[in-house]
């Protein structure tokens, strides 16, 4: 409605007349497609856009022409009507619910400021330019420009779960001039005009200008409240409607997602086209036959059978007979194929939803197949792209070990591998400390003793942890502390300190209040030297109540150990050893230190810091230099080790999946060390690997160089031909890739995001893919969401393999959408990934069941179903072809018309459907036990063009037997005047089951259909023993060769599944279970500290102290989005150095000396 040509939007507040000139959309939304009147025509029109439906409509029209009609019209209209009405009913129900939800939304109330007073209006009556008042916990009715709020600074907080799935809160702030317009009276006279961009779907962007009182104010996304958000922790706020109804960003985003198709779908479509071709060929052959017959025989036979009035020569007759045969033979392309396939997939989806073993009782979520059309593709997956955080790991950090003054704590009596199995050893902190967090687990009581004894180092150690952080606390009631940490690492550390008696209670911009060993102490916070990725450390400078100024620092061991006072040498060596030990266990480590400052030192530094802070140019650098200046000569306190907990069953799942020949790539935004660590702990990387390659070049050349050097392994059997350096042709990687394939299984590749950006460029991607695919494990770290999607696309493009992406956060959405199959882990990171996914469940380990059990079964069932379906239809239909030669090519049907009508939808669909839904070749435990069973799916062995031709040939063979055996019997028989039709009718259901399948249901159906036909003739015919003898004969002739062939194949070249079944039969007992090997003992560095810059500033500024936790969330999201943006931009401009570079890489194999790698940060 006028928005197609809208180039910019002008909205004047409180001026409906002015705004009406532009005919902006109203706030009434309509997601429903039909109403009662339009339903039938529109729905039918949509349905007939499906080729299959149109084809059958065309057949129906043909059948209405009496000269052509070889079958009466009901043979087509019954199935067509059935299919159409089922779809229509489904559409109608869907639409009904949409109507209902539309109505509900449109009739929500909101308060609109009309002529100076607040009036209740329905949502749908809100117009662009209106000012509306929102109260706490209300949904935002339209896209609003925030004008003022009840909170200071015009701030307000929103939750955007409905919009982007993120459950944390975000802060929005009004333009300063409007934030002063507090009450309705002032707002009623507000007449500012907003000029902004036209409606679009970019959730994180808005640009516009507010003109008010001759002044311009720039508007950004920070000033906008989008429809779908909920106002939180804000009493009330006022907003100006900018976009309404369908123009809102929420509605603009709800476009239909791309429909994913499976490879079987595509193959099926090709095959259906071929069958069409085949159909036309048969039609032509029979039409030619008809022409010849009518000329040679039919013209003479006219005394008994004259031509129909419009037919006057044999050519015209042949033309008509062509169409008649098209009608008769249409059962080779049965209408029920598509419907049956959908039904089967739906059934499989329900089985996934119902699977108890994919139900997580902790989060009370069952697995969910959100897309019902992809199930069989689950059985063909070759590449899995996995996110790390929240997918492989729980994103829960636990304080595991520490080293204080050269003494290591936290070793469990039972050893490290027995996680949570010894509740007796779990320390109980409550008697010692009423403020302790009961969920905190620690097993070494020597540390607690040391605290109780009052060891100074230990106290200082925990004091650092309780002071040096950016955590916000929220104390709902006395003693019930909730920490809002920006990274889980920090939360774990502060919680640890809390349990050991150094409880962080609250903070203000200038103070930190703690309870130390039961005594409340308030430190004045002098400065926060914030964390960033280059510094890899953070410090606070506090003044204790006694007046002593001290700097507390925590950071990566590599950086921190360099800045210690020389007298720490001995302690440093011991602590380094401890750090190495922790790293070897896959723990994330941090070192802690302090420095005493004199009042003068502080004053001096404070001055220089203020200067740097105020500087306008190079502020960052100057601040960093100032920080650097004071973080010197520190005294080492110790080190902490935090465990990034893996999700349950991850190593086992990965092991099984890789046994099933599925390659797993981890794509993570984390740092290289973290990612490699996780790679080891989840057994993707093992010590058995010959080499772990690391690519971290920053330039095109260096990345190419690194890629090339990988391709020449130390003892190369024959060196790969080096591609021309200028621009390697895309085909060149193939010979080296062969080479790489030969030696695969021993290498792993770790590539950094910035290198990946180069590797993904057009001229290098081939090289990259062939190298990466030769490696057993690939880990991409520091990748952006966009790059995740690009990697997936790359594999899709180069490998023609089925890809599966699994992730849990909003940053995985692009990857989930671009992979063939997207799996969402419904974890803590919101529901956006789940919403974009095709399958969702709550634990990574369910993936093995989804793929190896459900996927495999689905694939198997679908393939068998298709084979069987094509087979039966060919067997059924080709009989008409043979009969054509005996009935003057007149398109006479062999079967009863009702039989033809019902053949596909009743008689044969049910057993086939039952098979397609229920069939199992091996039980689920076996398919997990023998992951190799998954391979046929990846190689696409069970249904491909070859299998199709085998089915077709078999079908044609069956049709020959079906036709010619009764023919021979009949032409010799003296007796019956020949209900030849009946012979075939009876024969067919009995003989079509040559592919013997494994279901009891089938045997029932075998006899069932016989009873129905030719009420009159059935009695007479079935009494004749010849009929039964013929049935038996034809069945035997059909089945015996197939049986013999299958037996031979099974006997001489058994498939794994056959063997599994066989052994199961033979032994009938379970095999002994064996556990997978214990944790690998490799030693590598584990420093990792997921942290971001900027919180120190936030805290000291004091702006948001009132709702600190909310602000924290805002800040996090804002920061992360800008980080993504930066990397995106980087991708487009191909610059070399990303701003967040974690360090220049003189990267070595991670397997090398453990400390060295940590130092290389």
């Amino acid at each position, binding site marked *: 409605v006028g928005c197609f040509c809208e180039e910019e939007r002008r909205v004047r507040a409180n001026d409906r007349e002015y705004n009406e000139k532009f005919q902006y959309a109203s706030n009434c939304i309509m997601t429903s497609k039909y109403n009662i009147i339009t339903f039938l025509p529109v729905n039918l029109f949509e349905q007939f856009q499906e080729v299959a439906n149109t084809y059958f409509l065309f057949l129906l029209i043909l059948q209405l022409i009496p000269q052509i009609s070889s079958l009466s019209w009901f043979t087509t209209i019954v199935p067509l009507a059935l299919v159409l009405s089922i779809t229509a009913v489904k559409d109608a129900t869907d639409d009904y619910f949409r109507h209902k939800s539309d109505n509900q939304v449109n009739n929500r109330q909101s308060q609109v400021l009309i002529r100076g007073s607040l009036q209740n209006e329905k949502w749908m009556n809100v117009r662009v330019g209106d000012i509306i008042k929102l109260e706490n916990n209300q949904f935002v009715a339209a896209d609003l420009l925030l004008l003022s709020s009840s909170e200071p600074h015009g701030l307000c907080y929103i939750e955007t779960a409905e919009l982007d799935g993120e459950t944390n809160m975000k802060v929005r702030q009004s333009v300063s001039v409007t934030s002063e317009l507090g009450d309705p009276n002032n707002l009623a006279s507000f007449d500012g005009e907003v000029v902004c961009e036209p409606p679009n779907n970019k959730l994180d962007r808005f640009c516009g200008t507010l003109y008010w009182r001759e002044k311009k104010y720039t508007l950004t996304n920070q000033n906008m409240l989008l429809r779908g958000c909920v106002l939180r922790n804000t009493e009330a706020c006022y907003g100006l409607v900018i976009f309404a109804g369908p123009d809102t960003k929420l509605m603009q985003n709800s476009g239909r997602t791309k429909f994913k198709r499976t490879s079987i779908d595509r193959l099926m479509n090709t095959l259906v086209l071929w069958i069409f071709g085949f159909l036309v060929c048969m039609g032509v052959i029979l039409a030619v036959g008809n022409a010849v017959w009518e000329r040679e025989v039919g013209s003479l036979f006219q005394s008994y059978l004259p031509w*129909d009035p419009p037919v006057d020569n044999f050519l015209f007759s042949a033309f008509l007979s062509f169409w008649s045969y098209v009608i008769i033979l249409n059962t080779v392309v049965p209408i029920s194929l598509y419907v049956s396939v959908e039904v089967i997939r739906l059934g499989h989806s329900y089985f996934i939803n119902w699977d108890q073993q994919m139900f997580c009782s902790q*989060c009370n979520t069952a697995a969910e197949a959100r897309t019902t059309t992809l199930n069989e593709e689950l059985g063909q997956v070759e590449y899995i792209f996995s996110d790390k955080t929240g997918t492989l790991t729980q994103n829960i950090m636990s304080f595991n070990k520490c080293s204080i003054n050269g003494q290591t704590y936290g070793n469990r009596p039972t050893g490290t591998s027995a996680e949570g199995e010894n509740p007796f050893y779990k320390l109980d902190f409550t008697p010692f400390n009423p403020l302790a967090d009961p969920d905190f687990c620690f097993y070494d009581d020597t540390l607690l003793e040391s605290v109780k004894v009052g060891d100074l180092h230990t106290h200082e150690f925990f004091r650092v942890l309780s002071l040096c952080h950016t955590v916000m606390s929220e104390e709902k009631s006395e003693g019930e502390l909730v920490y809002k940490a920006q990274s889980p690492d920090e939360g774990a550390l502060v919680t640890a300190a809390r349990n050991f008696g150094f409880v962080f209670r609250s903070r203000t911009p200038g103070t930190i209040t703690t309870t130390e060993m039961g005594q409340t102490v308030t430190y004045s916070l002098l400065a926060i030297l914030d964390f960033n990725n280059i510094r890899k450390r953070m410090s606070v400078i506090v003044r204790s109540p006694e007046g002593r100024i001290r700097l507390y620092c925590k950071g990566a061991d590599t950086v921190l150990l360099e800045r210690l006072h020389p007298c720490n040498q001995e302690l440093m060596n011991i602590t380094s050893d401890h750090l190495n030990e922790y790293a070897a266990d896959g723990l994330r480590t941090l070192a802690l230190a302090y420095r005493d400052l004199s009042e003068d030192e502080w004053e001096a530094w404070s001055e220089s810091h203020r200067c740097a802070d105020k500087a306008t140019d190079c502020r960052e650098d100057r601040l960093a230099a100032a920080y650097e200046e004071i973080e010197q000569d520190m005294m080492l306190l110790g080190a902490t080790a935090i465990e990034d907990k893996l999700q349950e069953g991850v190593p086992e799942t990965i092991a099984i999946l890789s*046994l099933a020949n599925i390659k797993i790539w981890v794509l993570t935004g984390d740092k290289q060390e973290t990612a490699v660590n996780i790679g080891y702990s989840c057994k993707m990387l093992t010590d058995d690997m010959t080499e772990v390659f690391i690519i971290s070049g920053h330039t095109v050349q260096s990345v190419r160089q690194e890629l090339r050097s990988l391709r020449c392994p130390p003892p190369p059997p024959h060196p790969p031909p080096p591609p021309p350096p200028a621009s390697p042709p895309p085909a060149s990687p193939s010979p080296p890739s062969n080479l790489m394939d030969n030696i695969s299984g021993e290498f792993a590749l770790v590539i950094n995001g910035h290198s990946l950006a180069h590797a993904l460029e057009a001229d290098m991607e081939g090289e990259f893919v062939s190298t990466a695919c030769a490696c057993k494990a690939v880990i991409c770290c520091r990748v952006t969401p966009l790059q995740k999607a690009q990697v997936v696309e790359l594999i899709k493009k180069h490998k023609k393999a089925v890809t599966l992406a699994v992730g849990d956060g909003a940053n995985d959405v692009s990857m989930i959408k671009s992979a063939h199959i997207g799996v969402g882990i419904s974890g803590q990171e919101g529901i956006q990934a789940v919403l974009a996914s095709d399958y969702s469940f709550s634990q990574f*380990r369910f993936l093995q069941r989804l793929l190896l059990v459900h996927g495999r079964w689905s694939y198997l069932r679908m393939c068998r179903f298709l084979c069987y379906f094509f087979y039966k239809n060919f067997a059924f239909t080709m009989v008409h072809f043979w009969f054509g030669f005996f*009935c003057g090519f007149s398109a006479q049907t062999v079967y009863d018309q009702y039989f033809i009508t019902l053949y596909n939808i009743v008689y044969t669909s049910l057993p086939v459907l039952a098979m397609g839904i229920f069939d*199992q070749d091996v039980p689920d435990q076996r398919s997990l036990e023998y992951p190799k069973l998954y391979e046929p799916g990846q190689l696409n062995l069970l249904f491909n063009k070859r299998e199709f031709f085998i089915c077709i040939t078999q079908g044609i063979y069956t049709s020959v037997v079906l036709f010619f055996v009764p023919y021979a019997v009949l032409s010799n028989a*003296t007796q019956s005047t020949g209900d030849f039709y009946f012979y075939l009718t009876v024969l067919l259901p009995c003989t079509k089951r040559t592919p013997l399948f494994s279901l009891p249901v089938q045997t029932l159906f075998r006899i069932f259909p016989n009873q129905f036909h030719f009420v009159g003739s059935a009695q007479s015919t079935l009494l004749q023993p*010849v009929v039964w003898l013929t049935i038996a004969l034809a069945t035997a002739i059909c089945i015996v060769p197939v049986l013999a062939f299958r037996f031979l194949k099974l006997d001489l070249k058994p498939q794994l599944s056959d063997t599994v079944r*066989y052994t199961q039969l033979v032994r009938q007992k379970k095999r002994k279970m064996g556990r997978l090997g214990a944790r690998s003992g490799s030693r590598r560095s584990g420093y990792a500290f997921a942290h971001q810059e900027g919180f120190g500033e936030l805290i000291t500024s004091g702006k948001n102290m009132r709702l600190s936790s909310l602000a924290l969330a805002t800040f996090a999201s804002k920061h992360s989005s800008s980080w993504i943006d930066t990397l995106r931009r980087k991708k487009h401009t191909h610059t070399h150095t990303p701003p967040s570079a974690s360090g220049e890489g003189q990267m070595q194999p991670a397997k090398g000396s453990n400390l060295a790698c940590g130092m290389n940060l």
Partner: protein
Amino acid sequence: MIAAMMASSYNAKEEDGHHSGSSSHGGAGAVKSKKPDNTAFKQQRLPAWQPILTAGTVLPAFFVIGLIFIPIGIGLYVTSNNIKEFEVDYTGVDINSPCYSCAKNFSWNSTQSCVCSVNFTLEQPFESNVFMYYGLSNFYQNHRRYVKSRDDSQLNGDLSALMNPSKECEPYRTNDGLPIAPCGAIANSLFNDTLDLYYVDSNSTKTPIPLAKKGIAWWTDKHVKFRNPSGNTNLTVTFQGTTKPVNWRKPVYELDPSEADNNGFINEDFIVWMRTAALPTFRKLYRIIQKKSGTTPTLPSGRYILDITYNYPVLSFDGRKRMILSTISWMGGKNPFLGIAYITVGSICFFLGVVLLIIHHKYDTRNNSADIPN
């Protein structure tokens, strides 16, 4: 292995249902578990029978099929051979054939029917009931336009259909403005040769053989599918206002002058004709020669004369007409194919069984190593 491990850990977790995670989820603990039902159907544990093709099942199956089929085949073959069948072609194509002139001089308009006689000799006596068939060749009763050219409701005695036959009957629907009864091409082409059989004994006397014309149609056809309009009373009145099919010489209610209740749509010859044949060469039951008494054969060996009232032209489309005499057995008429086919299939099965057994013993890979490559 993993599966079991996973399963056990899974169960363990179910036991302690009040895990810390669940309390954070719903708060009050009144959370309804979304756990799927543990039914055999939903968990895909329905009992199933899986036929596994092992040597132990397949090879015996082959032998059993062979052992069953071969005796059946032999039985069928012997039975079929014991059936006596005699066939004579009386079309009159050959100039020496007695019906040559009738065939040549046929015209649709002639009122005078042409009669010809064919002599033949039965070498062996036919002992039991003998069935007499007429056979037609190259006659496409299975042509689509032919098959559909009938009106079943008219034949079922529907009065409105009688006066207003279905369009399917075109072009044999009406004649001179009157509806045709029975309408359609099938009825119009009713086989109307009359066959009479005489036994010629040693002193050249012709003894007519009694031919029963009742009981040649299927019971369901005669009593269910075909009915005269308004019962069997006074067919002449019932069929008033209709006309006979174009090719017919007599109206439908005068088809059998000798027996009153064999007229109209329930005339058995008509019913037999109306059941269309599946193949262009077919035979239809014409008469039954009942066995008279215990000892004398129904048809003793010797010379016979077949008198044909030649009404039915087939030469125009190169058709052939035959008369067949046959006895029947439990398995129907003479049918050597079925017996031979059974014997062949049985032998092949047996042979295959042996071959597979040899192959199985020589090359078997499974029994020796039941280990599964993983």
